[in-house]
Every structure is written in C-alpha cells, then in structure tokens.
C-alpha cells in the first residue's frame, strides 16, 4: 500500500519535471530577453545615471526619477499624445482596417483578394527609412510634394508643407498602413479557417453580410482579435522609429517612447539621462501590463481558454 503510494508520488514528480524540461527553452528566452531587461530598466530607473555621472559615479536616488515624471511640465502633453496616437491608430488601422481588409478580401474572388492583401504588405517589406521618405515626399512643400502637385495646386488652394500642418494625421497614417498588415494576415487566416459548412448554414439561415460578420465571424475570431489588439497596443506604445524618421518628435509628435529615447540616448544637449529615460520606459511597461489585464477581462479570456483536450 505504502509502496504504491510512493510510486505514484515519484511518478507525479517526474511528470512535473517533464513539464519543466518542455518549458525550459522558452523560459530561458523569456528570462533572458524580457525579465532581465525589465529588471535592469527598473534598477537603472532608481539611479541618477547619466553621461555626466558615467558608469562609476552614479547614486541611488530612489523614486526621484518617478517623482520627476509626475511633476514634469511636459508629462501631460506626451501622455495625452501617446494615448491619442495609440488609440486612433489601433482602432482605425491596426485592428479596424485590418479587419475590414480581411473581411472584404475573403469575400471577393481568391485572386483579387490575394493581390489586394499583397499590396498591403508592401510597406512592411520596405525599409523603414525609405517608406517614411515616401510619406515625406507625399506631404512635402511645393513644388515637390505629391499632394500639393496633384490636388492642392490644381484645385487652386495654397500649397503648404503637410507634415507639420497635419503632423498627427501623418504619424497615424504612417504607422497604420504598416500596422494593419499584421492584423490583416492573422484575421484573414482565422476567417478562412471558419468551416465552410458554418458559412453556408448562416447563408441558408438568412444572414446578410453584416449579420454574418456580427454573429458568426467575429465570435469565431475572438482569439485572434484579442491577440492582435493586445500585441498591437503594446507595439504601438513602444515603437517610435517611424516617427523618429518622419518628424523626430517635432510638431508635437513626441510620443512617450520617443521621449524616453531622446532623454536616454539622443538629445541635443548631449547629456544622456539613462536613469530618467529608464524610468519613462518602466512606466510604459506598467501601463502595458495593466492594459493587457484589462483586455483579457474584456474578451473574457477565461472563457476563451478551453479545458485541456487531453487529461494528464
């Protein structure tokens, strides 16, 4: 009796260890490339490390960097811009446009759908600098800009330099056109994976296109929707290279991550405030985690996760 119990205990233990070894490679990656950087970020954010202190003369200053963020006169401006930029790009492009493109291209002929989607992928495979340059030419002042040449001047309006004039619109468009292609690929494959019989059944049941989207397709692609929304929120919050190339944060386009970059690594005065920059980055990490949790609640993540298919 006792032996048997011991045997099962050993077995349990070995199953548990099996799990560990299966997860080990990914755990290692996560620890190395996520947890360590986060810890280093938080660690540095508690110091006054900067180019003037160097790596030797820095001091612990506790939460001073965070206090500084809290009272910094530019904080509200950057924060509001970031919220606006992430929300608008996400809703209208990275999720919204992606969804619309995948819905349309899965409901037209296969060839046309494929062609249209391939077109949307072009910005993603174009080097960022070239891609952003194209936008710059698009909005450039007369006599160069495409907008000015093709629309504004022929219609008799005064030409202008469009990037500063509509800077917010430009950063949204520049990021949105690239961002949409990611969701587009995920949503398209998810929509195409819906069983054909289900689609036929909904047609026979009398669902119009919009009704089918609402009652059949969207519930079916809830998982990819959650994934793309979360992933794109985080990536919009943290990536800034397009804005860096387009405006370098001028014309009121300094989003939070760009602010952190400028403070920590690249600014006019040459004093790189690593401590303060890292505190700014840490704030983004915290916001990202909070948003992730909110999304999971909203999409009822618990219901989406199914019981394991195989019992162990």
């Amino acid at each position, binding site marked *: 009796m006792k032996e048997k119990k011991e045997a099962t205990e050993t077995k349990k233990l070995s199953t548990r260890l099996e799990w560990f070894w299966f997860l080990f490679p990914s755990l290692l990656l996560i620890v190395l490339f996520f947890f360590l950087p986060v810890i280093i970020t938080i660690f540095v954010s508690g110091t006054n490390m900067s180019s003037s202190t160097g790596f030797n003369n820095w001091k612990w200053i506790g939460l001073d960097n965070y206090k500084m963020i809290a009272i910094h006169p530019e904080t509200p401006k950057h924060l509001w811009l970031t919220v606006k930029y992430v929300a608008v790009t996400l809703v209208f492009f990275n999720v919204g446009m992606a969804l619309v493109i995948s819905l349309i291209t899965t409901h037209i002929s296969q060839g046309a759908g494929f062609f249209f989607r391939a077109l949307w992928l072009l910005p993603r495979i174009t080097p960022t600098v070239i891609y952003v340059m194209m936008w710059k030419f698009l909005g450039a002042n007369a006599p160069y800009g495409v907008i000015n040449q093709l629309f504004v001047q022929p219609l008799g309006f005064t030409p202008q330099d469009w990037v500063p004039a509509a800077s917010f619109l430009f950063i949204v468009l520049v990021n949105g056109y690239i961002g949409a292609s990611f969701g587009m690929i995920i949503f398209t494959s998810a929509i195409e994976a819906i069983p054909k019989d289900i689609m036929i*059944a909904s047609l*026979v*049941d009398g669902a119009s296109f919009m009704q089918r989207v609402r009652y059949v397709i969207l519930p079916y692609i809830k998982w990819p929707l959650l994934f793309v929304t979360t992933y794109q929120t985080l990536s919009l919050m943290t990536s800034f290279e397009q804005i860096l190339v387009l405006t370098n944060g001028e014309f009121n386009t300094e989003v939070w991550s760009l602010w952190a970059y400028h403070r920590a690594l690249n600014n006019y005065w040459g004093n790189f405030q690593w401590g303060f920059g890292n505190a700014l980055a840490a704030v983004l990490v915290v916001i990202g985690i909070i948003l992730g949790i909110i999304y999971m609640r909203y999409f009822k993540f618990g219901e989406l996760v199914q019981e394991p298919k195989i019992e162990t």
Partner: protein
Amino acid sequence: MQVELVNLTKKFMGVTAVNRINIDIKDGEFVAFLGPSGCGKTTTLLMVAGIYKPTEGDILFDGVRVNHLPPKDRDIGMVFQSYALYPHMSVYQNLVFSLMLKKRPKTEMQAEAQRVADIMGIGHLLDRKPGQLSGGQQQRVALGRALIKKPKLLLFDEPLSNLDARLRISMRSEIKKLQNSLGITSIYVTHDQIEAMTMADRIAVIKNGVLQAYTEPEELHDRPRTLFIAEFIGNPPMNLFDVRLEDSGGKMYANLGEGIKLEIPPSRKPKVEPRGSVKMGIRPQDIIIDNNSDLRTEILLIEPMGRDDLIVCRVGNIEIHFLVDPVLKLKRGDSVGLKFDMEKAQFFDTETEKSLLWQ
C-alpha cells in the same frame, strides 16, 4: 414544393463537376442523390440551395426559375454531415438563429423553439453549447434548426455519415417518418446505397457529374440500366461474369467458360443484338446451394454478415459470391453444388455498358 433541375451544369475553372443533370421532384417527394465520392452530389445540392450559381441550366421551384435567388429567399432548410452548428451559441440560440435575424418577437422564438425541440426530443439540451453534445444530439439540433423555418424544401448532405452504425439506422427511420408526416419535399445526398434504398421515393444515381438513372429503388435494384448501377446498387455487390451467348436447339445459353453453361429463360433473353461476349450479372442472393447440380465447387472463404453468410468460391478462374443461411454451418473446404436463378440474371453490353434487357 415541386423542384425541377434542367440541364444543370457546374464548372469549376474548366473542370465539369456537374454535367447537364435533369431531375424533377414532385411536391412532398423524398429524393436521394446517390453516387461515389467526388461525383458532384454536394455541388448539385449547393446549387439548389443557392450557394453556387449554375454555369448552365436552370433550377425551378414550383415552375419559377430561381437561379439567382439568394439562399435566404429560397425557403430551404439544410442539414450537413459536419452538423455545422454555431459553436459559440447555445442550442436554443442555434435553433432560433434564423428567426432572430428576421427580428421575430421573443415569444414567437420561444414557442417555435419549443415546437421543434419537442419534435426532435432535444428540450433538455436547450442551454448547452454544441461542444457539450454527442454527435447524434448535435444532428438532432441541426435538424431542428432546419425545421424551425418551416421550409418548403429540406436539403440533407450526408447527415448520418458521422454517426455510429446503430444510431444511423434509428435516425434513418426517424428522418423518413418526420419527412413523411411533415410532407416536406426533400433531397438527401448520400454515398450509402442502403440509406438511399430504404429512405428515398426515388434515387438519382450520379457518376462523374452525369446522371446515370433516376427512378424508384426497386427498379434500380431489379432492372439496372447500366453496368455501373448494377455494380453500385445492392449489397453484397452483384457477381459479374464475361459470358458468350450461344444458341442451340431453340434455347439460349450463357457460356461462362470452365465448362459452366447456363440456360437463359425466355424472360431474360437480351432484347438487343449483343456484340461478341457480354457481361452477365447475378446477385449473391440469387445463387443457391443445390447438391443435385452439376456445377460443383469448393468453399474458399466464409464471411459472416449477420443474417446470412457470404460464401466465396472459385471454379477455375471464375470467382463466385453467394449467400447462404448460417444454420447450414458450412466450413471452408466443403464441396457444394450451385444453382443460378437465371430468372434474375442481368446482361450488359461489354462496350457500351448498357443493359441488354432494359432500355
């Protein structure tokens, strides 16, 4: 509703899946589309449903051309092999989905759901999700979802193929009874000939997109017009022999070779002048053991089939299958005499594969 398919044709990028099919279905009739996999049954059904547009030909409902009517305006209900229930909706929501889309009042939806739930015996399952139901229960829900619209035409695409053998048999008679009592015109796609034979008023046999025959089950079984039908219909399949027809003394004989010569009764004399040798078919149940017969053979194999045993034996190069009563307790290696019931024999032209008896 009366349904008519006229020269119905569907091509997919140059490949002809359905080729000039002509079928008329009477009001309240139960018609089966029977044929091997890939012969175009589903394609035809989906054209009737309005999912596919015909490349050529017409579909008429009660005499009205409906080629371009969308599925929702066709008054049809459809049942699939995969059940195709909406996985994120409860059974109740699945049932009333079509009513909900039409924005019917809640009380009506509840009453209708109750009505079909009673018919299908799924009242206790209304709150469950499809994933929590057995295959048979899911198919009942799917049937209920098709019925709730009070359709004028029911389309079934191999609805029982995913169920186990027992359930299949009980569902078979249940669907048939239901169809009978509701009197809804039905098209039932299947590759299972027993299903088609037991359920349908008429069977359309399709091969490679071409209609081979469209007639009553008995006719199909007793008077097959082509070799394909003869081979395809009937279980276990018909014996087919290459024979030479010989006249002697005013009587006609079928010479199977290996010294087997069978007299052909007048009722089975080929009506068409045959060219050279012909194919003779005879069903395993039409060959009986007769120990006075000159045709003697040794049993090679016994395959129990429940009610009968299927016996395989060989005379020279000719393999013969026939059915015997298991109480005879025959064993492998036993020697038996055989008698062919030539009143049931079929003859086909070797080249055209058309029947020489029924034209």
